[in-house]
Protein backbone atom coordinates (compact mmCIF):
# COMPACT_ATOMS: atom_id res chain seq x y z
CA UNK A 1 0.00 0.00 0.00
CA UNK A 2 1.94 2.94 -1.25
CA UNK A 3 -1.04 5.20 -1.35
CA UNK A 4 -1.99 7.15 1.71
CA UNK A 5 -5.42 6.71 3.16
CA UNK A 6 -6.49 10.05 1.79
CA UNK A 7 -5.37 9.07 -1.66
CA UNK A 8 -7.17 5.75 -1.58
CA UNK A 9 -8.96 4.74 -4.72
CA UNK A 10 -12.57 5.95 -4.41
CA UNK A 11 -13.96 2.50 -5.12
CA UNK A 12 -11.77 0.99 -2.46
CA UNK A 13 -12.70 3.65 0.00
CA UNK A 14 -16.35 3.09 -0.69
CA UNK A 15 -15.88 -0.60 -0.19
CA UNK A 16 -14.03 0.03 3.06
CA UNK A 17 -16.83 2.24 4.31
CA UNK A 18 -19.38 -0.41 3.48
CA UNK A 19 -17.33 -3.11 5.21
CA UNK A 20 -16.87 -0.97 8.33
CA UNK A 21 -20.56 -0.16 8.31
CA UNK A 22 -21.52 -3.81 8.01
CA UNK A 23 -19.13 -5.03 10.66
CA UNK A 24 -19.94 -2.40 13.24
CA UNK A 25 -23.63 -3.04 12.65
CA UNK A 26 -23.12 -6.74 13.07
CA UNK A 27 -21.03 -6.30 16.22
CA UNK A 28 -23.66 -4.08 17.75
CA UNK A 29 -26.42 -6.51 16.80
CA UNK A 30 -24.53 -9.44 18.30
CA UNK A 31 -23.84 -7.56 21.55
CA UNK A 32 -27.49 -6.54 21.88
CA UNK A 33 -28.67 -10.02 21.01
CA UNK A 34 -26.46 -11.68 23.60
CA UNK A 35 -27.66 -9.30 26.26
CA UNK A 36 -31.30 -9.81 25.36
CA UNK A 37 -30.78 -13.56 25.32
CA UNK A 38 -29.22 -13.61 28.75
CA UNK A 39 -32.05 -11.57 30.15
CA UNK A 40 -34.72 -13.74 28.65
CA UNK A 41 -33.71 -17.33 29.03
CA UNK A 42 -35.80 -19.38 31.39
CA UNK A 43 -34.05 -22.32 32.99
CA UNK A 44 -36.00 -25.47 33.69
CA UNK A 45 -36.07 -27.11 37.12
CA UNK A 46 -37.65 -30.47 37.99
CA UNK A 47 -39.54 -30.84 41.30
CA UNK A 48 -36.66 -32.35 43.29
CA UNK A 49 -34.44 -29.35 42.53
CA UNK A 50 -37.19 -26.93 43.44
CA UNK A 51 -37.90 -28.68 46.72
CA UNK A 52 -34.19 -29.14 47.39
CA UNK A 53 -33.63 -25.41 47.15
CA UNK A 54 -31.49 -25.53 44.00
CA UNK A 55 -33.75 -23.18 42.06
CA UNK A 56 -33.30 -19.42 42.41
CA UNK A 57 -36.00 -17.45 44.20
CA UNK A 58 -37.94 -14.64 42.54
CA UNK A 59 -36.39 -15.24 39.14
CA UNK A 60 -38.36 -16.27 36.08
CA UNK A 61 -37.86 -20.01 35.61
CA UNK A 62 -39.79 -22.96 34.28
CA UNK A 63 -40.89 -25.88 36.39
CA UNK A 64 -42.73 -29.01 35.51
CA UNK A 65 -43.93 -32.40 36.59
CA UNK A 66 -47.18 -34.27 37.09
CA UNK A 67 -50.24 -32.61 38.54
CA UNK A 68 -50.98 -34.52 41.71
CA UNK A 69 -54.35 -36.29 41.74
CA UNK A 70 -56.96 -34.40 43.73
CA UNK A 71 -54.73 -31.40 44.33
CA UNK A 72 -56.48 -28.82 42.15
CA UNK A 73 -58.29 -26.23 44.28
CA UNK A 74 -60.05 -23.08 43.22
CA UNK A 75 -60.76 -20.09 45.37
CA UNK A 76 -64.38 -19.28 46.08
CA UNK A 77 -64.03 -15.90 44.39
CA UNK A 78 -62.16 -14.93 41.26
CA UNK A 79 -60.19 -17.20 38.97
CA UNK A 80 -57.27 -18.13 41.20
CA UNK A 81 -56.29 -21.77 41.15
CA UNK A 82 -53.84 -23.84 43.10
CA UNK A 83 -52.42 -27.30 42.42
CA UNK A 84 -49.51 -29.52 43.40
CA UNK A 85 -46.79 -30.55 40.96
CA UNK A 86 -45.06 -33.76 41.86
CA UNK A 87 -42.44 -36.06 40.34
CA UNK A 88 -44.47 -39.03 41.64
CA UNK A 89 -41.58 -39.75 43.99
CA UNK A 90 -40.87 -37.67 47.08
CA UNK A 91 -40.81 -34.13 45.76
CA UNK A 92 -43.82 -31.91 45.33
CA UNK A 93 -44.59 -28.23 45.52
CA UNK A 94 -47.59 -25.94 45.30
CA UNK A 95 -48.29 -23.85 42.21
CA UNK A 96 -50.62 -20.86 42.22
CA UNK A 97 -52.00 -19.35 39.06
CA UNK A 98 -54.53 -16.69 38.21
CA UNK A 99 -56.53 -17.35 35.11
CA UNK A 100 -57.95 -20.11 32.97
CA UNK A 101 -56.00 -23.32 32.68
CA UNK A 102 -55.46 -24.80 29.20
CA UNK A 103 -57.87 -27.36 27.76
CA UNK A 104 -55.38 -30.16 28.13
CA UNK A 105 -54.76 -29.51 31.81
CA UNK A 106 -55.77 -32.57 33.78
CA UNK A 107 -54.92 -34.09 37.15
CA UNK A 108 -52.38 -36.85 36.79
CA UNK A 109 -50.95 -35.36 33.59
CA UNK A 110 -47.76 -33.51 32.86
CA UNK A 111 -47.60 -29.73 32.96
CA UNK A 112 -45.00 -27.09 32.40
CA UNK A 113 -45.30 -23.80 34.25
CA UNK A 114 -43.40 -20.55 33.74
CA UNK A 115 -43.19 -18.21 36.69
CA UNK A 116 -41.16 -17.64 39.82
CA UNK A 117 -40.48 -19.43 43.04
CA UNK A 118 -41.56 -17.47 46.11
CA UNK A 119 -39.91 -17.33 49.50
CA UNK A 120 -42.53 -19.63 51.01
CA UNK A 121 -41.58 -22.39 48.56
CA UNK A 122 -44.66 -22.04 46.40
CA UNK A 123 -44.47 -21.34 42.69
CA UNK A 124 -46.33 -18.37 41.23
CA UNK A 125 -47.07 -19.26 37.62
CA UNK A 126 -47.73 -16.73 34.88
CA UNK A 127 -48.18 -19.37 32.19
CA UNK A 128 -49.22 -23.01 32.37
CA UNK A 129 -48.79 -25.36 29.43
CA UNK A 130 -50.23 -28.83 29.25
CA UNK A 131 -50.59 -31.35 26.55
CA UNK A 132 -51.08 -35.05 26.80
CA UNK A 133 -50.96 -36.31 23.32
CA UNK A 134 -49.69 -39.85 23.10
CA UNK A 135 -46.78 -38.56 21.12
CA UNK A 136 -46.04 -35.39 22.93
CA UNK A 137 -44.69 -34.33 26.22
CA UNK A 138 -42.62 -31.26 26.98
CA UNK A 139 -38.99 -32.30 26.46
CA UNK A 140 -38.13 -31.18 29.95
CA UNK A 141 -40.44 -33.80 31.36
CA UNK A 142 -39.14 -36.52 29.09
CA UNK A 143 -35.72 -36.12 30.57
CA UNK A 144 -37.11 -36.12 34.03
CA UNK A 145 -38.43 -39.59 33.40
CA UNK A 146 -35.05 -40.70 32.11
CA UNK A 147 -33.12 -39.37 35.08
CA UNK A 148 -35.36 -41.17 37.47
CA UNK A 149 -34.46 -44.49 35.91
CA UNK A 150 -30.85 -44.31 36.83
Amino acid at each position, binding site marked *: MTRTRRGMHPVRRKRLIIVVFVFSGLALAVALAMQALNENINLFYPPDEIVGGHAPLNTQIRAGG*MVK*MGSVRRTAEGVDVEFVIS*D*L*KNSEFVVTYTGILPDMFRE*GQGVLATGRLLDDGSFLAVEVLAKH*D*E*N*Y*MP*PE*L*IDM*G*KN*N*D*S
Partner: protein
Amino acid sequence: MGRLRLFLPLCGFLLLVVMLWLGFSLNDPHILPSALLQKPFPGFELPSLQDAEKTLTQEDLKGKILLVNVWATWCPTCKAEHAELMRLKEQFGLEIAGVVYKDEPDNARRWLAAYGDPYIYNIIDRDGRLGIDLGVYGAPESFLLNAEGKILYKRVGEVNARIWRDEIRPRLEQLEYFDLDQQR
Protein backbone atom coordinates in the same frame (compact mmCIF):
# COMPACT_ATOMS: atom_id res chain seq x y z
CA MET B 1 -7.88 -15.01 1.31
CA GLY B 2 -9.92 -14.33 -1.83
CA ARG B 3 -11.61 -17.57 -2.65
CA LEU B 4 -11.24 -18.92 0.85
CA ARG B 5 -13.60 -16.24 2.05
CA LEU B 6 -16.29 -17.75 -0.11
CA PHE B 7 -16.14 -20.89 2.01
CA LEU B 8 -17.36 -18.95 5.03
CA PRO B 9 -21.06 -19.73 4.38
CA LEU B 10 -20.14 -23.40 4.14
CA CYS B 11 -18.31 -23.26 7.47
CA GLY B 12 -21.29 -21.60 9.13
CA PHE B 13 -23.51 -24.25 7.69
CA LEU B 14 -21.33 -27.09 8.93
CA LEU B 15 -21.39 -25.57 12.39
CA LEU B 16 -25.17 -25.56 12.27
CA VAL B 17 -25.22 -29.18 11.18
CA VAL B 18 -22.98 -30.20 14.08
CA MET B 19 -25.35 -28.44 16.45
CA LEU B 20 -28.41 -30.07 14.91
CA TRP B 21 -26.70 -33.43 15.09
CA LEU B 22 -25.85 -32.98 18.76
CA GLY B 23 -29.31 -31.70 19.61
CA PHE B 24 -30.77 -34.53 17.68
CA SER B 25 -28.88 -37.27 19.45
CA LEU B 26 -29.54 -35.65 22.83
CA ASN B 27 -33.23 -35.32 22.21
CA ASP B 28 -33.87 -38.74 20.85
CA PRO B 29 -36.40 -40.32 23.18
CA HIS B 30 -36.59 -43.50 21.13
CA ILE B 31 -33.16 -44.52 22.23
CA LEU B 32 -33.32 -46.43 25.45
CA PRO B 33 -31.55 -44.62 28.27
CA SER B 34 -28.43 -46.72 28.71
CA ALA B 35 -29.30 -47.07 32.39
CA LEU B 36 -32.11 -49.49 31.59
CA LEU B 37 -30.54 -51.52 28.82
CA GLN B 38 -29.62 -55.05 29.89
CA LYS B 39 -31.02 -54.29 33.34
CA PRO B 40 -33.77 -56.35 34.92
CA PHE B 41 -37.31 -55.06 34.62
CA PRO B 42 -37.99 -52.73 37.58
CA GLY B 43 -39.74 -54.19 40.58
CA PHE B 44 -43.48 -53.74 41.05
CA GLU B 45 -46.45 -55.20 42.89
CA LEU B 46 -49.63 -54.40 41.03
CA PRO B 47 -53.05 -55.99 40.50
CA SER B 48 -53.90 -58.06 37.46
CA LEU B 49 -56.64 -56.87 35.12
CA GLN B 50 -58.14 -60.31 34.53
CA ASP B 51 -58.15 -61.41 38.14
CA ALA B 52 -58.61 -58.57 40.60
CA GLU B 53 -57.53 -60.77 43.54
CA LYS B 54 -54.20 -61.58 41.99
CA THR B 55 -51.07 -59.45 42.45
CA LEU B 56 -48.43 -59.53 39.76
CA THR B 57 -44.72 -58.83 40.34
CA GLN B 58 -41.58 -58.70 38.24
CA GLU B 59 -41.10 -62.43 38.98
CA ASP B 60 -44.14 -63.20 36.81
CA LEU B 61 -42.34 -61.77 33.80
CA LYS B 62 -39.48 -64.26 34.04
CA GLY B 63 -39.14 -67.66 32.45
CA LYS B 64 -39.88 -66.83 28.84
CA ILE B 65 -39.23 -64.28 26.14
CA LEU B 66 -41.86 -61.60 26.46
CA LEU B 67 -42.97 -58.34 24.96
CA VAL B 68 -44.26 -55.93 27.60
CA ASN B 69 -46.62 -53.43 26.01
CA VAL B 70 -47.64 -50.22 27.80
CA TRP B 71 -51.04 -49.09 26.56
CA ALA B 72 -54.23 -47.24 27.45
CA THR B 73 -57.68 -46.78 26.01
CA TRP B 74 -57.24 -43.00 25.88
CA CYS B 75 -54.35 -43.41 23.46
CA PRO B 76 -55.36 -43.34 19.79
CA THR B 77 -52.10 -44.81 18.56
CA CYS B 78 -52.68 -47.81 20.81
CA LYS B 79 -55.76 -48.54 18.76
CA ALA B 80 -53.72 -48.63 15.59
CA GLU B 81 -51.05 -50.71 17.31
CA HIS B 82 -53.56 -53.16 18.72
CA ALA B 83 -54.14 -54.81 15.34
CA GLU B 84 -50.44 -55.41 14.89
CA LEU B 85 -50.19 -56.98 18.35
CA MET B 86 -53.07 -59.30 17.45
CA ARG B 87 -51.23 -60.31 14.32
CA LEU B 88 -48.00 -60.99 16.19
CA LYS B 89 -49.87 -63.18 18.65
CA GLU B 90 -51.78 -65.14 15.99
CA GLN B 91 -49.00 -65.51 13.48
CA PHE B 92 -45.91 -65.91 15.59
CA GLY B 93 -47.32 -66.91 18.95
CA LEU B 94 -45.55 -63.96 20.52
CA GLU B 95 -46.40 -63.65 24.20
CA ILE B 96 -47.32 -60.14 25.17
CA ALA B 97 -47.87 -58.80 28.66
CA GLY B 98 -49.85 -55.58 28.87
CA VAL B 99 -49.40 -52.67 31.23
CA VAL B 100 -52.62 -50.67 31.42
CA TYR B 101 -51.17 -47.23 31.88
CA LYS B 102 -53.05 -44.48 33.73
CA ASP B 103 -56.42 -45.86 32.81
CA GLU B 104 -59.59 -47.21 34.38
CA PRO B 105 -59.56 -51.03 34.53
CA ASP B 106 -63.18 -51.08 33.35
CA ASN B 107 -62.29 -49.17 30.18
CA ALA B 108 -59.48 -51.60 29.52
CA ARG B 109 -61.73 -54.63 30.01
CA ARG B 110 -64.32 -53.20 27.65
CA TRP B 111 -61.66 -52.44 25.04
CA LEU B 112 -60.28 -56.00 25.15
CA ALA B 113 -63.77 -57.45 24.88
CA ALA B 114 -64.53 -55.25 21.87
CA TYR B 115 -61.32 -55.49 19.88
CA GLY B 116 -59.80 -58.78 20.99
CA ASP B 117 -57.17 -59.62 23.56
CA PRO B 118 -53.57 -60.08 22.39
CA TYR B 119 -52.21 -60.23 25.96
CA ILE B 120 -51.43 -63.18 28.18
CA TYR B 121 -52.27 -60.91 31.13
CA ASN B 122 -52.39 -57.23 32.02
CA ILE B 123 -50.82 -55.28 34.84
CA ILE B 124 -52.87 -52.34 36.13
CA ASP B 125 -50.65 -49.29 36.55
CA ARG B 126 -53.32 -46.83 37.44
CA ASP B 127 -51.27 -43.93 38.80
CA GLY B 128 -48.39 -44.46 36.36
CA ARG B 129 -45.80 -45.35 39.00
CA LEU B 130 -44.46 -48.34 37.09
CA GLY B 131 -44.45 -46.10 34.04
CA ILE B 132 -42.13 -43.69 35.83
CA ASP B 133 -39.78 -46.50 36.82
CA LEU B 134 -39.77 -47.64 33.20
CA GLY B 135 -39.10 -44.14 31.92
CA VAL B 136 -42.35 -44.23 29.99
CA TYR B 137 -43.25 -40.85 28.61
CA GLY B 138 -46.36 -41.75 26.74
CA ALA B 139 -48.29 -44.71 25.48
CA PRO B 140 -47.72 -46.90 23.60
CA GLU B 141 -44.30 -48.17 24.54
CA SER B 142 -42.96 -51.70 24.41
CA PHE B 143 -40.14 -53.60 26.08
CA LEU B 144 -38.64 -56.86 24.91
CA LEU B 145 -37.56 -59.06 27.84
CA ASN B 146 -35.48 -62.23 27.77
CA ALA B 147 -36.20 -65.26 29.90
CA GLU B 148 -34.28 -63.75 32.83
CA GLY B 149 -36.52 -60.68 32.74
CA LYS B 150 -33.81 -58.40 31.37
CA ILE B 151 -34.74 -55.55 29.05
CA LEU B 152 -33.22 -56.15 25.61
CA TYR B 153 -34.98 -53.50 23.62
CA LYS B 154 -37.37 -50.62 24.10
CA ARG B 155 -39.69 -49.05 21.59
CA VAL B 156 -41.22 -45.64 22.21
CA GLY B 157 -44.29 -45.33 20.03
CA GLU B 158 -46.28 -47.98 18.26
CA VAL B 159 -45.02 -51.38 17.25
CA ASN B 160 -45.86 -51.65 13.57
CA ALA B 161 -44.94 -54.03 10.80
CA ARG B 162 -41.70 -52.19 10.15
CA ILE B 163 -40.59 -52.17 13.77
CA TRP B 164 -41.40 -55.86 14.00
CA ARG B 165 -39.44 -56.62 10.85
CA ASP B 166 -36.42 -54.41 11.53
CA GLU B 167 -36.13 -54.30 15.28
CA ILE B 168 -37.96 -57.03 17.13
CA ARG B 169 -37.83 -60.01 14.85
CA PRO B 170 -34.03 -59.90 14.32
CA ARG B 171 -33.58 -59.81 18.09
CA LEU B 172 -35.85 -62.79 18.53
CA GLU B 173 -33.92 -64.64 15.84
CA GLN B 174 -30.73 -63.93 17.73
CA LEU B 175 -32.29 -65.57 20.75
CA GLU B 176 -33.24 -68.55 18.54
CA TYR B 177 -36.81 -67.90 19.47
CA PHE B 178 -38.20 -69.13 16.18
CA ASP B 179 -36.31 -72.42 16.22
CA LEU B 180 -37.85 -73.20 19.55
CA ASP B 181 -41.17 -72.17 18.16
CA GLN B 182 -41.01 -74.68 15.34
CA GLN B 183 -40.14 -77.51 17.66
CA ARG B 184 -43.15 -76.78 19.74
